[in-house]
């Protein structure tokens, strides 16, 4: 009896010790704060300014590749600089001349010019004629590599390689996906105002490589990219009523979407690219329809005596925003993707049109008309937190970059000039003009190409 009692008690106490030890270890390992009461301060303010980044010209193996190196360096510098989140440092300020891709940079030299990030790259041709580019991103103050990749491509893709590297750097340093390796379709406008020739045109998002997709015989409007394939849908006045078309960028093949009596317009792809949503006008009112591109089945989504148009899907495909004047004035409404009861979300003064749902789902962009001014703004899908990003005589037609952080739109100053394309980030801080061959309107941003 006594014999049994003592060991039992001991066992308990030892278990107690073990538990206590374990608990202590758990406490100290989860609470990594120092044992000594260290001074603790809170820093709640910092700078909101672009990050200074140094992008020395890429190194080449042979003098014949210098042009290529210059191009890729210029593309990256331009991309990052235009994003508004980076401030490329003037190469004239560089102290160290990067000559060896594999060497560790002399960080004090880069700290001295306050570069926070340093991109070192190398580009050259391989034996098979393909180009090979690689880069390394250095954290100058931490003295560590942050990223590095290499790419191979045909030489005509040198600009794309630059955009892809820009996207990689952007994502590594901001935590958000980039948007540089993407394209824009828009309406190229030439000739006098009353006899404009409008051609469907496509270019890289930075304005390079513009090429015409239509010849300008028909009036074309509102091109939209498929989020899933190399296809564009747009509206064209050919013979008779305006129609919605589908155009394959690669093959040049085009077809009419649906065959309805009356006009179809304002087409836009569903997020999976499998159907096109548009409005169909008949007898003074227009309603929203969706057509499945595979089965050609058509579904009516709204049935009102008003003008419902400019539909745009939420990125998850669950809801649709559109504009309607059912309340008297053009306002933005949101309804389930299969139709159902629309909820009005815009309640500000003026009228709202061309709503576009951001690819990241968090906001809806719109054009707002108030007192002779056209503004581009964003609001939450529930209509809250409306913010005007830019305002002026005529701004219209917002389209989102693939990462939802930048909007492109067109601005027409009126008079004898014509419209031009601009980008603005969703903070409204960074507005940039996009270079185009001539006047340009109705931009539509593609998804990322890679």
């Amino acid at each position, binding site marked *: 009896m006594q014999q049994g009692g003592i060991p039992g008690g001991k066992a308990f106490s030892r278990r107690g010790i073990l538990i206590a030890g*374990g608990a202590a270890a758990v406490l100290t390992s989860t609470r990594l704060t120092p044992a000594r009461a260290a001074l603790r301060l809170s820093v709640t303010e910092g700078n*909101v300014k672009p990050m200074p980044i140094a992008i020395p010209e890429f190194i080449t193996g042979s003098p014949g590749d210098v042009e290529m190196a210059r191009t890729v360096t210029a593309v990256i510098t331009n991309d990052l600089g235009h994003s508004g989140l980076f401030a490329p440092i003037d190469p004239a300020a560089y102290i160290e001349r990067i000559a060896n891709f594999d060497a560790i940079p002399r960080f004090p030299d880069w700290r001295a010019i306050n570069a926070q990030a340093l991109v070192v790259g190398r580009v050259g041709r391989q034996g098979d004629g393909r180009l090979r580019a690689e880069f390394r991103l250095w954290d100058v103050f931490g003295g560590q590599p942050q990223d590095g990749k290499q790419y191979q491509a045909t030489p005509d893709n040198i600009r794309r390689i630059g955009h892809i590297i820009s996207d990689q750097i952007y994502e590594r340093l901001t935590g958000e996906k980039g948007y540089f390796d993407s394209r824009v379709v828009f309406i190229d406008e030439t000739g006098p105002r009353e006899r404009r020739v409008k051609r469907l045109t496509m270019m890289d998002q930075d304005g390079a490589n513009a090429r015409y997709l239509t010849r300008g015989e028909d009036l074309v409007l509102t091109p939209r990219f498929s989020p899933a394939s190399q296809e564009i849908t747009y509206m064209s006045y050919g013979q008779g009523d305006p129609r919605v078309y589908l155009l394959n960028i690669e093959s040049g093949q085009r077809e009419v979407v649906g065959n309805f009596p009356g006009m179809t317009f304002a087409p836009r792809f569903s997020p999976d690219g499998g159907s096109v949503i548009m409005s169909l006008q008949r007898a003074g009112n227009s309603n929203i329809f969706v057509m499945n591109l595979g089965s050609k089945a058509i579904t009516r989504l709204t049935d009102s005596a008003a003008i419902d148009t400019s539909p745009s899907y939420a990125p998850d495909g669950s809801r649709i925003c559109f504009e309607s004047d059912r309340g008297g004035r053009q306002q933005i409404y949101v309804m389930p993707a299969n139709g159902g009861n629309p909820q009005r979300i815009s309640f500000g003064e003026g009228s709202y049109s061309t709503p576009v749902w951001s690819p990241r789902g968090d906001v809806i962009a719109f054009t707002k008309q108030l007192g002779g001014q056209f503004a581009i703004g964003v609001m939450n899908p529930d209509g809250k937190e409306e913010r005007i990003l830019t305002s002026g005589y005529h701004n219209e037609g917002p389209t989102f970059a693939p990462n939802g952080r930048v909007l492109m739109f067109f601005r027409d100053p009126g008079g004898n000039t014509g419209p031009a394309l601009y980008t603005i980030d969703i903070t409204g801080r960074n507005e940039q003009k996009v270079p185009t061959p001539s006047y340009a309107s109705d931009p539509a941003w593609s998804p990322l190409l890679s």
Partner: protein
Amino acid sequence: MGERMRAGLTVSAIAHVAVLAWLLVTLPSIRVNSNPALTVDMISDAELSQVMAGVQNGPKADAPKPIVDKVGDPSPPVKDPVPKVSDKPEIAPSAAAPPPPPPEAKPAEAKPDKAEPKVDEIAEALKREEAKKREEAKKVAEAKKREEAKKREEARKREEAKKREQEKFDTASIENRLALMDRRAPQRHASLGAVINETASLGADRANAVALSANEQDALRRRLAECWDVPVGVRNARDLVVTIQIDFKKDGSLAADPVILNKSANPVFQVAAESALRGVRRCAPYKFMPPAKYEAWQEVVIDFDPREMFRD
């Protein structure tokens, strides 16, 4: 007219003189009810924060009597009170950056026979515990105590051995706990004379020997804010508070690379953390920190909190 004026002036002059004379006689006798005069010392900001903690009515010992005659060498300050469990992994490039050249394929080395004798977990744990106890004992007391402890341990060991025979253990749970057990070196230090000799003396009751003044704290906070470029591209800054421990040298330079103390599931946390780290490193050294109060800022924990800034 002139006559009357002169008369008035004379009357006025006489009256004034009379009043003044009366005051001269009576004033000294009027009691002014006042407290005894206070002496006010003007002290500087620095002196204020040097004021020692104490009690107002503490005895003012001219020469505090030493309790311990011999004051031993104070042990060096603990460099890293919480030894890191594991080193921070180096941030590696996310993809194959080709160089440095791939190491030559190593010839497969003959693997040593790995069959080690199986360790008795419990005996191991006990040995460790014993070692720990012993170390503490060594520090605190004389050899006699150590003897006792040893004896105790031995007795206990015997007990345990006995018990092991008598009883079956749930080995799995013991192993789990052993894994959790704190195996770090004991951190308690024996009291040295310098500590024991502290006596109550005059001082403000909530003052601390070395503390940074509000101005000094603010200077550090401001400098860090200047150096910190908030990642503006980041959305949902909500859970992006980054807590960083900075260990300083006395000259204001960084004694070690700053360490991130918190974690977040937010994928952009790394970006936020790096921005804060960049800020801390970029502005080092912090030469304006007062060396006299080094103890107070040797180790600082900073919360970089952008939430206020992102409120729109």
